């Protein structure tokens, strides 16, 4: 039971991450969008977006560190 739940939540997190990554690029396939709209809540997407923004900032900082090192 627990294993299934963990699997499901892992899949959900991946789905949120994918939605946010495509959002940052600004494109999304219609079928995927409809799937997102049916299964994800706005709160999940907003939290995902904020986490995505933090990862975005950290990854640019990492690139900058690599460039100047």
């Amino acid at each position, binding site marked *: 039971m627990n294993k299934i739940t963990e699997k499901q939540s892992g899949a959900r997190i991946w789905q949120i991450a994918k939605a946010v990554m*495509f*959002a*940052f*690029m*600004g*494109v*999304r396939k*219609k079928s995927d*969008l409809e799937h997102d*709209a049916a299964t994800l809540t*706005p709160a999940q997407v907003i939290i995902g*977006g904020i986490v*995505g*923004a933090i990862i*975005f*900032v950290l990854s*640019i*900082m990492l*690139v*900058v*560190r690599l*460039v*100047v090192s």
Partner: protein
Amino acid sequence: MAAVHGDAHGHDDHHPSGIMRWVTTTNHKDIGTMYLWFSFTMFLIGGFLAMGIRAELYQPGIQILQPELFNQFTTLHGLIMVFGAIMPAFVGFANWQVPLMIGAPDMAFARMNNWSFWLLPVAGTLLVSSFFVPGGAAAGGWTFYPPLSTQGGLGVDLMIFAVHILGASSIMGSINIITTILNMRAPGMTLMKMPMFVWTWLITAYLLVLVMPVLAGVVTMLLTDRHFGTSFFNAAGGGDPVMFQHIFWFFGHPEVYIMILPAFGIVSEIIPTFARKPLFGYSSMVYATASIAILSCVVWAHHMFTAGMPTVGQLFFMYATMLIAVPTGVKVFNWTATMWRGSMTFETPMLFAIGFIFLFVIGGFSGVICAIVPIDIQVQDTYYVIAHFHYVLVSGALFSLFAGVYYWLPKWTGNMYNETLGKWHFWLSMFFFNLTFFVQHFLGLAGMPRRIPDYNLQFADFNMVSSIGAFGFGLTQLLFLYIVISCIRSGEKSPEKPWDGATTLEWTHLPCPAPYHSFEKPPIVK
């Protein structure tokens, strides 16, 4: 909700007439109209200041404006255009169009809506009257950097007070828009069925709520530095003037997107209507708008590359700024793809929308050029930057406003504008705008600094060309005023649906003009 609808009946007969109708109104259409007229008035005042600037710069030497007054003109031109013209104009559009496009009877907080508007003339009066106080108006540029702004006279205090009031108005307006969109959509209108204009305003409103308090904070710190002995921005007292720039631009860069996202929304309504095709990549547009809003909060220091910043900081903000071009590029691609193989016609709204795309791309590209640190260090505070942001804000924001006015005038007034004059307005604006601002790229690359009343002889020719363009552009806007007034007073009666490609609720469910109380019973969206 039923009670609200019930109460709305018969209000047409009982609302006050004359001036009190406008003072006491809580109707979103009345308030939208007032926002639009207010912003146009401020546009004319800001335009008058621009004419003064360009008249002085027509030739080298000091002819008309003494340097102190010239600085006041540039400062107030920027403040009035940003806070008094462009922003209230978009709020005016939101007031008129958001309830009509989502099938709501009015804005959520109708009385607060009235208050949001009536704060504006107070702030506008403060800004304009600051010219007449001892020492004159603020003269440190629209970004009011210290130490100039901590040393200025009474005019700076009036400006600070005006910015506080405008900020309060914007925050209230935004809360109203967010609440209306999230709670008052017609049954069946899910978030992903909302028109793009509504989406862009929802995201813009969140941005406003996020950054307006930052602006209020920084002007309050300025005020306490000026009058209450603090030293936030005074190095001699342990403060840091560069900190002002960081806080200001943390507001200032999202502010750029606050002025352009609703423009994207208007263009995204007009292009599909006149291409007679649905918007290409609707969901991509929504996603791109959201990501632009998030990214706009992490790029602010690209305005400060020469202010003193470690290389690591310069690289971070350079990379982040260049990446924000990606979702913006997606939008331009989508508009172009919408027009691709569409049954296009070129009425005035479409002309302005296409003009917007064409010129906004130029402004966007010069923005990417400015984002590159080594180039920015060369062009910082030159006319190149002036050219860049006028391509974004005039041929971007302002052209979209013109497009929106022509598009929705039949819905607002019940009358058609004069199409021939509208096209004249577009082509003259297009010609004179480019005459004014394209040459400023050359001036900037040649090294002409901004905010100076006099210049070296090598800049003379392009400045003369730019000034002639500016006078032409200014006069052309009087033609716009004539077109709008003649449409209201004596325009031909509009057909029920003047744009056959329009699909949003205000065109499919309401007559022209929209009745004073609309959608008392919400439409069902399928």
